[in-house]
Protein backbone atom coordinates (compact mmCIF):
# COMPACT_ATOMS: atom_id res chain seq x y z
CA UNK A 1 0.00 0.00 0.00
CA UNK A 2 1.15 3.52 -0.76
CA UNK A 3 -0.19 6.68 0.86
CA UNK A 4 0.34 10.16 -0.58
CA UNK A 5 -1.06 13.25 1.07
CA UNK A 6 -1.38 16.89 0.07
CA UNK A 7 -3.33 19.86 1.39
CA UNK A 8 -5.83 21.71 -0.75
CA UNK A 9 -8.59 24.16 0.22
CA UNK A 10 -8.11 23.32 3.89
CA UNK A 11 -8.53 19.59 3.35
CA UNK A 12 -5.94 16.84 3.51
CA UNK A 13 -6.28 14.81 0.34
CA UNK A 14 -5.09 11.26 0.85
CA UNK A 15 -4.31 9.08 -2.17
CA UNK A 16 -4.33 5.41 -1.21
CA UNK A 17 -2.87 2.91 -3.67
CA UNK A 18 -2.50 -0.85 -3.73
CA UNK A 19 -3.94 -3.18 -1.11
CA UNK A 20 -5.44 -2.32 2.24
CA UNK A 21 -5.29 -5.59 4.15
CA UNK A 22 -4.62 -6.76 7.69
CA UNK A 23 -0.92 -6.03 7.27
CA UNK A 24 -1.15 -2.61 5.63
CA UNK A 25 -4.31 -1.06 7.15
CA UNK A 26 -2.48 -0.04 10.37
CA UNK A 27 -0.21 2.21 8.22
CA UNK A 28 -3.27 4.09 6.98
CA UNK A 29 -4.66 4.43 10.49
CA UNK A 30 -1.33 5.57 11.96
CA UNK A 31 -0.72 8.07 9.17
CA UNK A 32 -4.13 9.71 9.54
CA UNK A 33 -4.11 9.55 13.36
CA UNK A 34 -0.82 11.41 13.26
CA UNK A 35 -2.33 14.15 11.12
CA UNK A 36 -5.41 14.38 13.35
CA UNK A 37 -3.23 14.85 16.40
CA UNK A 38 -1.45 17.68 14.56
CA UNK A 39 -4.84 19.41 14.29
CA UNK A 40 -6.01 18.40 10.81
CA UNK A 41 -9.68 17.52 10.76
CA UNK A 42 -10.91 17.51 7.15
CA UNK A 43 -9.87 14.56 5.04
CA UNK A 44 -10.71 13.57 1.49
CA UNK A 45 -9.72 9.97 0.82
CA UNK A 46 -9.14 9.20 -2.86
CA UNK A 47 -9.36 5.45 -3.47
CA UNK A 48 -8.84 5.49 -7.25
CA UNK A 49 -5.62 3.49 -6.89
CA UNK A 50 -6.95 1.02 -4.32
CA UNK A 51 -7.38 -2.48 -5.72
CA UNK A 52 -8.32 -4.44 -2.62
CA UNK A 53 -9.78 -3.80 0.82
CA UNK A 54 -10.54 -6.25 3.62
CA UNK A 55 -12.34 -5.79 6.95
CA UNK A 56 -9.05 -4.60 8.46
CA UNK A 57 -9.13 -1.68 6.02
CA UNK A 58 -12.78 -0.94 6.79
CA UNK A 59 -11.99 -1.07 10.49
CA UNK A 60 -9.17 1.47 10.17
CA UNK A 61 -11.48 3.80 8.20
CA UNK A 62 -14.18 3.45 10.87
CA UNK A 63 -11.71 4.07 13.65
CA UNK A 64 -10.39 7.24 11.96
CA UNK A 65 -13.91 8.53 11.36
CA UNK A 66 -14.81 7.99 15.02
CA UNK A 67 -11.74 10.02 16.02
CA UNK A 68 -12.72 12.76 13.56
CA UNK A 69 -16.29 12.87 14.81
CA UNK A 70 -15.02 13.62 18.32
CA UNK A 71 -13.10 16.58 16.88
CA UNK A 72 -16.05 17.68 14.73
CA UNK A 73 -14.01 16.83 11.69
CA UNK A 74 -15.03 15.42 8.31
CA UNK A 75 -14.03 12.47 6.20
CA UNK A 76 -15.08 12.28 2.55
CA UNK A 77 -14.37 9.70 -0.12
CA UNK A 78 -13.86 9.67 -3.85
CA UNK A 79 -12.54 7.28 -6.49
CA UNK A 80 -14.56 4.26 -5.41
CA UNK A 81 -14.64 1.58 -8.10
CA UNK A 82 -14.69 -2.15 -8.73
CA UNK A 83 -14.22 -4.49 -5.77
CA UNK A 84 -13.57 -1.67 -3.30
CA UNK A 85 -16.88 -0.02 -4.17
CA UNK A 86 -18.60 -3.39 -3.85
CA UNK A 87 -17.16 -3.96 -0.37
CA UNK A 88 -18.26 -0.46 0.70
CA UNK A 89 -21.80 -1.31 -0.47
CA UNK A 90 -21.93 -4.77 1.12
CA UNK A 91 -20.71 -3.34 4.44
CA UNK A 92 -23.10 -0.38 4.39
CA UNK A 93 -20.17 2.06 4.27
CA UNK A 94 -21.75 3.71 1.23
CA UNK A 95 -24.59 4.94 3.45
CA UNK A 96 -22.54 6.08 6.47
CA UNK A 97 -19.92 8.03 4.50
CA UNK A 98 -20.11 10.84 1.99
CA UNK A 99 -18.88 9.58 -1.37
CA UNK A 100 -18.23 11.86 -4.35
CA UNK A 101 -17.57 11.22 -8.02
CA UNK A 102 -14.52 13.49 -8.14
CA UNK A 103 -12.08 15.35 -5.87
CA UNK A 104 -13.49 18.60 -7.26
CA UNK A 105 -17.09 17.94 -6.25
CA UNK A 106 -15.94 16.73 -2.83
CA UNK A 107 -13.86 19.87 -2.25
CA UNK A 108 -16.81 22.07 -3.21
CA UNK A 109 -18.82 20.36 -0.46
CA UNK A 110 -16.28 21.43 2.18
Amino acid at each position, binding site marked *: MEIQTRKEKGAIIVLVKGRMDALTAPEFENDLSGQISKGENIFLINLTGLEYI*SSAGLRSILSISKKLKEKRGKILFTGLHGPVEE*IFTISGFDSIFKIFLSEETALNEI
Partner: protein
Amino acid sequence: MSIVFTITLPAKLENLQKMMRSVCDSAQIQGFARKKIGEIELAAEEAWVNICNYAYPEQSGDVEVIGKADDNNFIIEIIDSGIPFDITALSDPNITDDVDERKIGGLGVFLMKKMADEVRYRRENDRNVVELIFKKAGGG
Protein backbone atom coordinates in the same frame (compact mmCIF):
# COMPACT_ATOMS: atom_id res chain seq x y z
CA MET B 1 -12.17 -33.97 -5.54
CA SER B 2 -8.37 -33.66 -5.55
CA ILE B 3 -6.01 -31.71 -3.35
CA VAL B 4 -4.41 -28.86 -5.31
CA PHE B 5 -2.26 -27.31 -2.59
CA THR B 6 -1.47 -27.51 1.10
CA ILE B 7 0.43 -25.06 3.24
CA THR B 8 1.02 -25.09 7.00
CA LEU B 9 2.19 -21.95 8.74
CA PRO B 10 2.32 -20.54 12.27
CA ALA B 11 -0.89 -18.60 13.02
CA LYS B 12 0.70 -15.19 12.73
CA LEU B 13 -0.57 -12.15 10.88
CA GLU B 14 2.80 -11.70 9.14
CA ASN B 15 2.29 -15.03 7.32
CA LEU B 16 -0.80 -13.67 5.58
CA GLN B 17 1.03 -12.98 2.31
CA LYS B 18 2.50 -16.49 2.08
CA MET B 19 -0.92 -18.04 2.59
CA MET B 20 -2.51 -15.61 0.14
CA ARG B 21 0.05 -16.42 -2.54
CA SER B 22 -0.84 -20.13 -2.40
CA VAL B 23 -4.55 -19.36 -2.51
CA CYS B 24 -4.20 -16.83 -5.32
CA ASP B 25 -1.92 -18.99 -7.51
CA SER B 26 -4.23 -21.94 -7.07
CA ALA B 27 -7.37 -19.92 -7.88
CA GLN B 28 -5.68 -18.73 -11.08
CA ILE B 29 -4.81 -22.28 -12.10
CA GLN B 30 -8.44 -23.25 -11.45
CA GLY B 31 -9.41 -20.69 -14.08
CA PHE B 32 -11.32 -18.15 -12.00
CA ALA B 33 -11.80 -14.65 -13.40
CA ARG B 34 -9.87 -11.81 -11.77
CA LYS B 35 -12.92 -10.45 -9.94
CA LYS B 36 -13.70 -13.84 -8.43
CA ILE B 37 -10.05 -14.31 -7.42
CA GLY B 38 -10.32 -11.04 -5.46
CA GLU B 39 -13.37 -12.43 -3.65
CA ILE B 40 -11.57 -15.71 -2.91
CA GLU B 41 -8.59 -13.76 -1.54
CA LEU B 42 -10.83 -11.66 0.66
CA ALA B 43 -12.63 -14.69 2.16
CA ALA B 44 -9.28 -16.39 2.79
CA GLU B 45 -7.79 -13.29 4.43
CA GLU B 46 -10.75 -12.92 6.77
CA ALA B 47 -10.59 -16.57 7.82
CA TRP B 48 -6.84 -16.31 8.37
CA VAL B 49 -7.00 -13.10 10.39
CA ASN B 50 -9.78 -14.51 12.52
CA ILE B 51 -7.63 -17.51 13.48
CA CYS B 52 -4.57 -15.34 14.15
CA ASN B 53 -6.65 -13.12 16.45
CA TYR B 54 -8.67 -15.69 18.36
CA ALA B 55 -7.64 -19.33 17.95
CA TYR B 56 -4.58 -19.39 20.17
CA PRO B 57 -5.03 -16.89 23.01
CA GLU B 58 -2.38 -18.41 25.24
CA GLN B 59 0.08 -20.37 23.17
CA SER B 60 1.19 -20.28 19.56
CA GLY B 61 -0.12 -22.73 17.01
CA ASP B 62 -0.29 -23.60 13.34
CA VAL B 63 -2.84 -23.18 10.61
CA GLU B 64 -3.13 -25.69 7.81
CA VAL B 65 -4.66 -24.52 4.55
CA ILE B 66 -5.72 -27.12 2.00
CA GLY B 67 -7.01 -26.33 -1.48
CA LYS B 68 -9.29 -28.88 -3.14
CA ALA B 69 -10.91 -28.78 -6.53
CA ASP B 70 -13.09 -30.66 -8.97
CA ASP B 71 -14.94 -29.57 -12.10
CA ASN B 72 -17.60 -27.69 -10.15
CA ASN B 73 -16.03 -26.37 -6.96
CA PHE B 74 -12.88 -24.92 -5.49
CA ILE B 75 -12.70 -25.44 -1.74
CA ILE B 76 -10.29 -23.86 0.73
CA GLU B 77 -10.11 -25.73 4.02
CA ILE B 78 -8.60 -23.81 6.90
CA ILE B 79 -7.73 -25.87 9.95
CA ASP B 80 -6.50 -24.84 13.40
CA SER B 81 -6.18 -26.70 16.68
CA GLY B 82 -7.13 -23.71 18.80
CA ILE B 83 -10.17 -23.05 20.97
CA PRO B 84 -13.48 -24.29 19.50
CA PHE B 85 -15.07 -21.53 17.43
CA ASP B 86 -18.00 -22.01 15.08
CA ILE B 87 -17.59 -19.12 12.71
CA THR B 88 -20.90 -19.89 10.98
CA ALA B 89 -22.83 -19.35 14.24
CA LEU B 90 -21.72 -15.70 14.53
CA SER B 91 -24.51 -13.20 13.90
CA ASP B 92 -24.06 -10.54 11.23
CA PRO B 93 -23.17 -6.99 12.29
CA ASN B 94 -25.82 -4.31 11.87
CA ILE B 95 -24.66 -2.66 8.67
CA THR B 96 -27.22 0.15 8.86
CA ASP B 97 -25.78 1.73 12.03
CA ASP B 98 -24.14 5.11 11.54
CA VAL B 99 -20.55 6.00 12.51
CA ASP B 100 -21.35 6.39 16.22
CA GLU B 101 -23.08 3.07 16.64
CA ARG B 102 -21.03 1.06 14.18
CA LYS B 103 -19.04 -1.61 15.99
CA ILE B 104 -15.39 -1.92 15.02
CA GLY B 105 -15.53 -5.75 14.95
CA GLY B 106 -17.66 -8.39 13.28
CA LEU B 107 -17.15 -7.28 9.70
CA GLY B 108 -14.51 -9.87 8.82
CA VAL B 109 -16.63 -12.98 9.24
CA PHE B 110 -19.53 -11.17 7.57
CA LEU B 111 -17.42 -10.40 4.48
CA MET B 112 -16.07 -13.95 4.44
CA LYS B 113 -19.64 -15.31 4.30
CA LYS B 114 -20.58 -12.82 1.58
CA MET B 115 -17.58 -13.62 -0.62
CA ALA B 116 -17.75 -17.42 -0.47
CA ASP B 117 -20.61 -19.27 -2.12
CA GLU B 118 -20.85 -21.35 1.03
CA VAL B 119 -19.05 -21.52 4.39
CA ARG B 120 -19.07 -24.73 6.43
CA TYR B 121 -17.68 -25.40 9.87
CA ARG B 122 -16.95 -28.63 11.69
CA ARG B 123 -15.08 -29.60 14.83
CA GLU B 124 -13.02 -32.66 14.06
CA ASN B 125 -10.30 -34.35 16.18
CA ASP B 126 -10.06 -31.27 18.43
CA ARG B 127 -9.55 -29.05 15.43
CA ASN B 128 -11.64 -26.29 13.85
CA VAL B 129 -12.21 -26.91 10.16
CA VAL B 130 -13.62 -24.06 8.09
CA GLU B 131 -14.47 -24.78 4.48
CA LEU B 132 -14.79 -21.89 2.03
CA ILE B 133 -16.59 -23.13 -1.05
CA PHE B 134 -16.42 -21.35 -4.40
CA LYS B 135 -18.42 -22.53 -7.39
CA LYS B 136 -16.79 -22.50 -10.78
CA ALA B 137 -18.66 -20.59 -13.47
CA GLY B 138 -20.49 -22.99 -15.74
CA GLY B 139 -20.04 -25.86 -13.30
CA GLY B 140 -22.71 -27.56 -11.17
